[in-house]
């Protein structure tokens, strides 16, 4: 119901003019390391390291390259085994460098500790891979107003009592290069514990997804990645997604900080996924 709470936050807008502000007094900013890492059952760990920049600093290719971190030592351990991740290059995406495992694959039920050593500092984070969740059903409903688009619906039964957190991604074959998180992808079972939960999958687009952009087109083949995540991992995405929507909203409370699980001196997340994959053709 974080989804709904967020919609609540989207509510009304009193008015009026919007203008660009010329000069604001900007406080100094200390750059921090950003850890964007994940591990899934059956797959190698993947970690991207960057540095944060001052909000108003120029963005150009030089500045963005400065934000890369490619000389760190990144390792994972499950308590018994450990591995130092290897630096890979992928020009298709930004940042073009990332660290990936080559020996240890994720296993359900295990806890993984991530250690990053960079420029004399060490950062640590812990996550776990929970059992993958199961969908009850996944179906298509053609949009009554528009012939060429459709809504994708998902229903699953939540495990009672235990706190469950989920994250959902979709990938349209031929259109999306990788799995994209859906709009408000992180869901907690606070409001439907032990019950069936049904909802409409909206793709993540700029602004409010009430346009056709957030839907799927007839003829798409869509892969759905439905994952279980632990609470710290959920808190990160919950606060990140809420912050992305709150910006510009007078409704949002001042406490917009994103809750990282990577320690005090680093930003970002180290998260484990217990993933289930499903495929559906939109027709």
């Amino acid at each position, binding site marked *: 119901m974080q989804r709904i709470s967020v919609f609540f936050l989207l509510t009304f807008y009193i008015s009026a003019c919007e203008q660009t502000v010329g000069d604001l007094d900007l406080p100094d900013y200390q750059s921090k390391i950003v850890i*964007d890492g994940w591990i899934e059952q059956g797959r190698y760990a993947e970690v991207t390291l960057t540095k944060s920049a001052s909000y108003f600093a120029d963005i150009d290719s030089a500045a963005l390259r400065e934000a890369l971190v490619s000389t760190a030592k990144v390792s994972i351990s499950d308590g018994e085994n450990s591995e130092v991740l290897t630096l890979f290059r992928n020009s298709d995406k930004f940042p073009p460098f990332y660290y990936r495992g080559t020996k240890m694959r994720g296993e359900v039920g295990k806890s993984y500790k991530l250690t990053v050593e960079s420029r004399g500092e060490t950062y640590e984070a812990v996550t776990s891979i929970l059992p993958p969740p199961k969908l009850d059903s996944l179906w298509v409903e053609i949009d009554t107003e528009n012939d060429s688009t459709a809504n994708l619906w998902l229903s699953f039964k939540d495990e009672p009592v235990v706190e469950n957190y989920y994250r959902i991604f979709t990938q349209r074959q031929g259109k999306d290069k990788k799995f994209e998180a859906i709009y408000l992808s992180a869901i907690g079972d606070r409001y439907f514990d032990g019950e069936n939960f049904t909802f409409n999958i909206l793709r993540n687009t700029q602004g409010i997804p009430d346009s056709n952009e957030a839907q799927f087109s007839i003829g798409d083949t869509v892969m759905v990645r439905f994952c279980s995540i632990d609470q710290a991992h959920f808190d990160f995405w919950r606060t990140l997604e809420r912050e992305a929507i709150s910006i510009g909203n007078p409704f949002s409370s001042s406490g917009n900080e994103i809750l990282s699980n990577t320690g005090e001196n680093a930003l970002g997340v180290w998260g484990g996924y217990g993933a289930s994959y499903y495929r559906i053709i939109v027709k």
Partner: protein
Amino acid sequence: MRIFISFFRAFLCLIFWQTGFSIYAQELPVVFKIADAETNTPLLKAHIYIEDIEKNLVADFDGKAHTEIKAGGYHAVVKYIGYETKYFYFEIEKKEQVVEIALSPATLTIEEVTVNAEAENAHTHSVDIGSTSIKAKEIQDLPFLMGEADPLKSIQYLPGVQASGEGNGGIFVRGGSLDQNLILYDNAPIYNPNHLFGFFSVFNVNSISQFDIMKGGIPAHFGGRLSSVLNIKSRKASNTRKAFKGNVGFLAGSFAAELPVVKNKSSLLVSARRTYADLILKGLSSSIDALNNQPDYYFYDVNINYDHQLSSKDRFSFVFYRGKDDFAYQQGNSFRNTIAWANTTGAFNWKHAFNSSFVAEASFYFSDYKMELGAGINNYNLNLNSGIRDVGGKLVFSLDKNEKASTQFGTEIISRRFTPNNIALSSSDTELDVPNTATPALYGLEVAAFMNHKKEIGRFLVNAGLRVSAFAQLGPFTRYAGNDNNVLLDSVNFNKGDIVASYSNVEPRLAIRYKIDEHNSLKTSIDRTAQYVHLAPISSVSLPTDIWVPSSENIRPQSAWQVALGYFKTLGGGAWETSATVYHKLMQNQLEYRNGVIFGYGTGYNFDDNFTFGKGHSTGLELFLKKHEGRLTGWLAYTLSRTTRRFEEIDSNRPFPAKYDRLHDLSLVGNYQLSKKWKISTVFVLASGNTLTLPTGRYLIEGRVVNDYGTRNNFRMPAYHRWDISATLRAGKKDSYSAWWVFSIYNLYNRQNPYYLYFDVSGNAEDYNLDIEAKKVSLFPILPSISYRFEF
């Protein structure tokens, strides 16, 4: 979000037209002579109140009062302690008329009208260090937004009182937050005094007679909020003559009827206000497509005041208020947003005089505030209700030993019912179960006993008081206990009437005035105040979505110590008043939401699990200069202050500026009587900007730009300044029918004052192309308006 903005703005700019006016005419000098009927001794300091023009006079040491009023017939009341109050009628036909009034001694008199003694040096003589009294007539002249004379707005122009900004009519008094002001309408509390997000307040100037704002040196019979008491007295209709008043503007209209019920004994005042722009738009939208997606908004309010003088010893009155705001916005079938709030209050007041120096006043009141919010997007719907209901009684005894000493004592009891957040959620047709956020009603009981003694000793006037207050949260209630992983372990049930948590506070109050001489004085006050209700602030900009919660096991009562010292001076024979006051306030148990808490998605099972507590600290200097005689009148108020907060859980216990911390706050108000028919009024305000928490850094996660926030309230918005002007024209007068035209312009030089700021990100990191701009949202541009006011 941005797509919805322009609609409402066009709507506002298109339809706002309204104002108010005032009158002036040739006035003749008159002398009233008041003397004892038997001995012919002049009665010094006798009070005269001329009903028809709401004028207060105080006789000087010769028992004479001088004034200037226009020719005509008038009803007046003369009072003096120890004498029978006299009602009389007099007519003024020529200059220098002398009206002689003889009063007979009596043992039974009663205060039926709160007479405000504007003696020449009342400003320095009174012990009021933090109070200001304003009469309804005084505010009628000022140019307000849309020309609607508004008590709450006029208070914002006083030193030490800061407006919370456009879009909200709340006030911050000496560094206190919005919930720290007790707003009373004839003893009944009002929780949300705003219409249209602060455009207008709920107080219809036709139904109020005067209001006092106390921000320091608060007498012991007031309590329950830390920072101020705004005591609004309803207007009593004349019990001899009928009167009708109205105001017509394009946006809203009001009408009031004052009727005597039993001649010379009782009267009834009924007034109502409503917007009608919504009805006009609805009618138009059927033919004009562009109006289809406009927001729909209306408000109304109704006041009923009944006053009855039972005998010379007893008087009672009954007031009732009901007002509602309703806003709805719908776009197709995919997006809807509604917000509505309403206040309903009623009070019954009984005054009984045992003798001329011993009076008792009993009040019974109720106040009901409800707020409803609805949002829907595609198939999700959310509805949220929140409310607070008070039922209470107060008994105050006043004993006047003699001219130099008086005592008040009494008690107050309030039963409260809170419905903090009742959320109903549904996804398509499925009703979703929200057990932890649908908070059942919470109950509380607040009691207080107080005593106040005022005594004049030589050059000192001392007002010492003590208020002892207590609060209990009562059942039915269930307290849940969860572990760190938020698994429910246990719950404790309380039955109806059980005490769940209780607190008490001793609140000493002291105010001392030292008279240096007739025109100069030094005043000081020390107040301790306690508060058992809290407004949980969910938005960074105040909107009527904030919820009221009681003190409880986890929420301790707020309390404050305030010390103030001021120097007061009158000049020019009373024509000018000036003062300079410094204050220092320390507040405990201030409330904020924990970081990362979404409204309705907290981390605990109990309603009070998501708050964090800390201290507030405010200090300031208030300068005030007022001219109240002559063709040009007005005042200048300047406050220099600093307000910070300090919470263990926020910014590692380092102090951060309060949201409304404003270093400078300046208000300049002026009224000029241009000619017999024309009067010009103007207001200029200048204030430092509010603070905001904005990101200071950014980083990438999964290719998306994410914000890194620095410390709380790390940004300051640009300064706020605005100039308003209005001109009142007295239209012709026929028999008893009078009319005025008011032309006003709000925000004369069209400054786009920032309502709040945010950073707009566009572009794509992958393409090495990101554009970040600081955007500011402003509410009210230049808004001219015209309105017509009439009386008969």
